[in-house]
């Protein structure tokens, strides 16, 4: 068991290195810092001096991989690769292209992101699993049929419309909560309600349908017939036997995203003006701030790998076959 966890952790290292090399290639090799400078400064009026100045301010004026001009260890460390990519491994994100400390931004913006993402995740999982159980319980009836129809229809609506429509109806027409904005403390509730609600509703269609398929697959298995042959009632069969087995495939998809909740939601945060990591990312993309995007790529990958590890661990909680072998 311990060896298993350690092996998974070790396996994460080459993946992180791979991610790092890939982003490095994408950000510095495919397009040179010169290109970036030209883009930031505007293609039209750009002088070589302005480019050099821009690069020097942000530390992009060093060689990519090997600095022949420096001495000793600096030949390797005083390079873009070391400064910008290797340092990510120790969570040294450096400064954004606008000069702000990325690490600090990430720390302060994590809170609002989690304040939206965690309730959304918990509520969403509860609602969709309940709906799916309901449909599975009434399988092959009109309720199930129309439930699936509604799910497919809800899946077919772009999440943009959920947000725009929700904001319009709830905030503009009914004036129930503020359209956007964010505040800490007890006031946060008013601002969080709508984004959480919209995110949950937007996810109902596809998740419910997916969980329903899983439940139906489990219901078709032999052990369910055995349970019924004991004289157990249908709800008992569903909750005691089916649900526990269905949790195994459900966990595969769900646990992996838990660490990624830190990253927040791009769309919701940007629409509702929440100062989280999601809107930070969008702003960085729009401002073409490569330093921030690079840092977010690294954090995202790291969290994903943590998610994979958590998934493996969660199996041991629900599946005795994994736990005891």
């Amino acid at each position, binding site marked *: 068991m311990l*060896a298993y966890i*350690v*092996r998974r952790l*070790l396996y994460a290292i080459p993946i992180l290195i791979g991610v790092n090399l890939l982003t490095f290639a994408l950000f510095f090799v495919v397009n040179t810092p010169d290109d970036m400078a030209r883009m930031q400064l505007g293609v039209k009026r750009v002088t070589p001096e302005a480019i050099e100045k821009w690069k020097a301010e942000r530390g992009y004026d060093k060689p990519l991989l090997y600095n022949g001009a420096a001495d000793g260890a600096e030949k390797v460390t005083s390079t873009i690769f070391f400064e910008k990519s290797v340092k990510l491994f120790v969570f040294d994100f450096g400064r954004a292209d606008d000069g702000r400390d990325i690490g600090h931004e990430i720390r302060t913006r994590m809170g609002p992101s989690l304040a939206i993402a965690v309730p959304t995740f918990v509520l969403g999982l509860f609602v969709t699993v309940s709906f799916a159980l309901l449909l599975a319980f009434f*399988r*092959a009836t009109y309720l199930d049929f129309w439930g699936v129809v509604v799910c497919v229809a809800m899946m077919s609506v772009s999440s943009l419309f959920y947000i725009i429509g929700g904001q319009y109806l709830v905030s503009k027409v009914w004036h129930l909560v503020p359209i956007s904005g964010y505040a800490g403390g007890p006031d946060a509730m008013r601002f969080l309600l709508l984004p959480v609600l919209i995110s949950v509703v937007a996810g109902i269609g596809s998740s419910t349908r997916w969980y329903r398929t899983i439940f139906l697959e489990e219901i078709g*298995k*032999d*052990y369910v*017939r*055995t*349970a*019924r*042959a*004991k*004289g*157990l*009632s249908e709800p008992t069969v569903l909750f*005691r*036997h089916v649900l*526990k*087995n269905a949790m*195994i495939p459900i966990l595969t998809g769900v646990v992996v995203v838990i660490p990624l909740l830190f990253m927040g939601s791009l769309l919701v945060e940007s629409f509702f003006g929440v100062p989280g990591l999601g809107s930070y990312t969008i702003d960085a993309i729009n401002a073409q701030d490569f330093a921030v995007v690079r840092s977010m790529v690294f954090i995202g990958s790291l969290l994903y790998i943590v998610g994979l590890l958590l998934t493996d661990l969660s199996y041991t909680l*629900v*599946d*005795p*076959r994994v736990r*005891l072998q």
Partner: protein
Amino acid sequence: MSLLRVESLRTFIDSADGTLRAVDDVSFDVSSGETFALLGESGCGKSMTALSLMRLLPDAGRIAGGRVLLDGCDLLALTEAEMRQVRGRDLAMIFQEPSTSLNPVLSVGRQIGEVLSRHTPLRGDAAKRRAVELLDAVGIPDAPRRLEEFPFQFSGGMKQRVMIAMALAGDPRLLIADEPTTALDVTIQAQVLELLGDLQRSRGMGMLLITHDLGIVGQLAQRVGVMYAGQLVEVAERRAFFERPRHPYSQKLFAALPRPARRGAGLETIPGSVPSLAASFAGCRFAERCAHAWARCRSEPPSWHGTDAGHGVRCHLYAPGAAPVDRAGAALPATPERDDRQPVPAPLLEASGLKVHFPIRRGLFKRTVGQVRAVDGVSLGLTSGRTLALVGESGCGKTTAGKAILQLIRPTAGSVRFGGEELTALGGERLRRLRGQMQIVFQDPYASLDPRMRVGDIIEEGMGALKAGAAAAERERRTVGLLERVGLSGEMRGRYPHEFSGGQRQRIAIARALAVEPRLLVCDEPTSALDVSVQAQILNLLRELQASLGLAYLFITHNIAVVEYLAHEVAVMYLGRIVERGSAAEVLGDPKHPYTEALLSAVPRLDAQGQRPLIVLRSDLPSPANPPSGCHFHPRCPRAMPQCARDYPTETRLDDTRRVRCLLYG
């Protein structure tokens, strides 16, 4: 008054091909303390009958009519809530596949406790004590500890015992056992059948036993009902049924069984296949395949005719006034068997010291910490025109041995000489050319043909892979020839495998192997997925091909009856090693090794005389990853001596052909 009375039960299943009449007017009854066996081939509706009694049909199924009276109470008239009171308390059921029928994530104790809390007033410690009693009763050692364990920690036989314990927890008056031992090995089957018989006698339960195996019927049942195409065609006392089956279908079932007495002769077969249950029948459902059918059989469905006490048949032959017919099947002419004492030519295949080990990797860096010794020193020889049966239970390594001989799995050690060439040393092109001379026929006719290829392409595949250059027209001519050779017609080559029945598919698989003109055919359980009547067709075909082409067969099987019928020589395998080998007559007639003895005694026999006293083996097959010290068999051996735990016995030559590995003979 009988415990269970089923009256004209009809169960329909809605499918894409229309409504299947899976159970069509079935009536029978079962008394307390009696075992009634429903016998039939796959798809005859026997399992659907059982599920209808429990009202546990699949979503597409529905009961269309009839009555099911349990102690006079009509189960079909109960509400679902009332029916749930009956299930598990009055009526319990065990299923065919113990490995999927238990909930994998709940402990065994919880799954048994569920029945107790549903149907008995027992709770808490009292319930736990009762669960321990139940596990004891079904012969699970160390019950208090095992209650906490999960199904995957039990072996197949033990799981089936847990299923039985669960079924008994509500103290049912009638137990339905749906093919309870089909998924188990012969020695385990013997244990479970004995247990079921004992429990049924001691509790005075009624038992409805569903099976396809005449041997099990003979061992366990008091009365028998034979089902064909959704209907009961014959009901009789066991003795009367075995002495003189009346329905032509029942007669054929007996005649198609491979038996030593039929060695050298062809087996009787039933032509054609079971009709689709979606069809509506004008006459008798068996008429198309019946040797005795006449015009009336095709135009008028036969009604039920009682003959002697308790014996009834659904057949026009027994209608009052029907002309008496010769009801015994015509004996097939015996083809002379090859003389066993011909001068033995040089062996075609010789394997010695063959080992296949799979590494077990564990720990941080997946280091190899052990070996699964799937095949651990197997030596055997085979000459052209002869059949060597490699016999053993599942997990003993017989299939792996077969594949290692063909070099489909590269052996870890040992030598395989084929026609004088050492195969283990060969590679690349030379091995490829030799592959044409040794082919394999697999167990599952549904998995062994590529569903996306036409039959003609399947058969030509080998020719293409091995004998590139043959002209297309020439290949096609040969394909037609091969199809006809295995009893199919040439125009079938344009069709796809799903259009064929299991038996026809197995014929195609044989034709595919023959296409490259092999000298050795490894048959890996080629008939174990087939019904008895179809098995007979395939065995006949294999015998005939051997006689005309001089093929050597390495016949891998667990079915002793087939071995008795077909094999010239027998090698018995246990945990990766051959424990006994010799000519078929020697090994099967006078087994020397205690394992062989136990194996043979566990096979249910039709005739009481042939039945050896049952030797029930203790416990299960150990894991080949961690075999017992000394003789691998000693923990289960009824005749084990202290030294058996220390030394692995060397091979003892009893005579020219006979070898055994046992310290009793050392």
